[in-house]
């Protein structure tokens, strides 16, 4: 047990055992799937009609938004280029299906039906239509285990959507609300603030909803505040999700080093400092 916990040395064995076990799991998933399929098949016409109406309205809304967002994205990229900022990394998404959540009292995980054969990598974020669900923590060939936001000490760097304040959301274990840690009392937070991924960690792409602040306890004498949040994405509602094949190194600009070689002048940009650019004409 210690070997597995500390060194991850037994992962090949786990992979092989999984290879045997997975067909059995699929067999046992059949009753549930059949039940769901039949109940879907027998939905009444009126409910389908209703659903259709809602979907149409939603689709109209979304396509409008999509047209705008395309324009905004191009504009944003152009502006970023003008400012010589790093480009936003584009990434692919991979539709995944949630197979089951294994019964495990300690952690809160789900198993999805895509693995390393589909291009999934360790640490890829998983999201559904409303927000981030979790992160791939163990990879098999045709399936993967995803750790959910609720998992203990599962951290996501976030940004408050309203004012851009950066923080980190931590999972507090099953059944407990998420916590926003390491924030001073005076920080500008309100109940109902939406937390988006900030993207500074290089794991989560920026701008995806993670959680909503549900309760704030300010503690003036310790200069700290306990902020509790609720994840945006409901885990158990849908079986479909998206994996982001996000790699911030991909498509990133190579670091500029030619300013020294031309003139022999000392380096203006020491490593580790932010790239500065002379303004105006020279």
């Amino acid at each position, binding site marked *: 047990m210690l070997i597995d916990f500390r060194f991850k040395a037994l992962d090949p064995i*786990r992979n092989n*055992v*999984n290879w045997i076990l997975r067909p059995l799991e699929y067999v046992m998933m059949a*009753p549930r799937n059949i039940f769901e399929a039949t109940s879907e098949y027998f939905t009444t016409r009126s409910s389908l009609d209703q659903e259709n109406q809602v979907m149409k309205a939603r689709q109209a809304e979304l396509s409008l938004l999509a047209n705008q967002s395309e324009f905004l994205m191009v504009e944003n990229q152009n502006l970023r280029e003008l400012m010589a900022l790093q480009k936003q990394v584009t990434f692919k998404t991979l539709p995944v299906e949630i197979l089951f*959540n294994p*019964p495990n*009292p300690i952690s809160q995980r789900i*198993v999805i039906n895509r693995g390393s054969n589909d291009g999934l990598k360790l640490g890829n974020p998983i999201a559904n239509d409303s927000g981030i669900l979790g992160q791939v923590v163990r990879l098999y060939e045709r399936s993967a285990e995803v750790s959910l936001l609720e998992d203990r000490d599962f951290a996501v760097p976030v940004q408050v959507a309203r004012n851009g304040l950066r923080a980190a959301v931590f999972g507090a*274990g099953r059944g407990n609300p998420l916590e926003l840690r390491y924030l001073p009392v005076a920080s500008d937070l309100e109940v109902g603030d939406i937390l988006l991924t900030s993207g500074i960690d290089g794991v989560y792409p920026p701008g995806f909803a993670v959680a909503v602040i549900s309760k704030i306890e300010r503690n003036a004498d310790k200069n700290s505040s306990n902020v509790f949040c609720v994840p945006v994405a409901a885990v158990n509602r849908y079986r479909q999700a998206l994996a982001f094949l996000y790699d911030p190194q991909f498509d990133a600009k190579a670091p500029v080093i030619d300013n020294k070689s031309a003139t022999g002048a000392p380096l203006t940009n020491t490593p580790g400092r932010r790239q500065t650019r002379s303004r105006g004409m020279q």
Partner: protein
Amino acid sequence: MIDIQSGYILRPVNPVFIYFSLLCALLLNLLPIGNYGWVPDWLIICIVFWNIHQHRYVSIIWAFILGFLMDVHNSDILGLHAFSYSFVAYLAISWHRRIVALSVLSQALHLLPIFLLVSLFPVLVHLLLTGEFYWWALTGAIQALIEAMLWPLATRILLSPQRRSIDVDHNRPL
């Protein structure tokens, strides 16, 4: 083997039935019910049962292998269930003479600590490895209670092939 409850001599056990029941229990454990603490662990009931009644067929090795499978399925640390299952199998074998002689209800009461051990073992290991006590996982106690309550049912089902009468009277089947 003598059935203490009824006083009759049981039929010899069919090894195929033993392995079939273990496979069924494993499959029941793989059912995608969800991550609830109270869902009974069918496999451990089956393992303990066969270790008490027929420990020559189902040994600690079997408990270890099945526990290993459960570890992979539950995405636990490898060896967690393997160890607890085989330890419990050992306990069951060493208690089997005493337990078989009891009535079914007191058997269930005797096995409650065994089931509790299996259910709470992950919490213990988590405490040792990370130093955190995980209160939420104590719902495993409910699981152990349910397993103990299922014990009479398990006895009834798993012993039924051996309780069939030897000379069946076809005119009066009961």
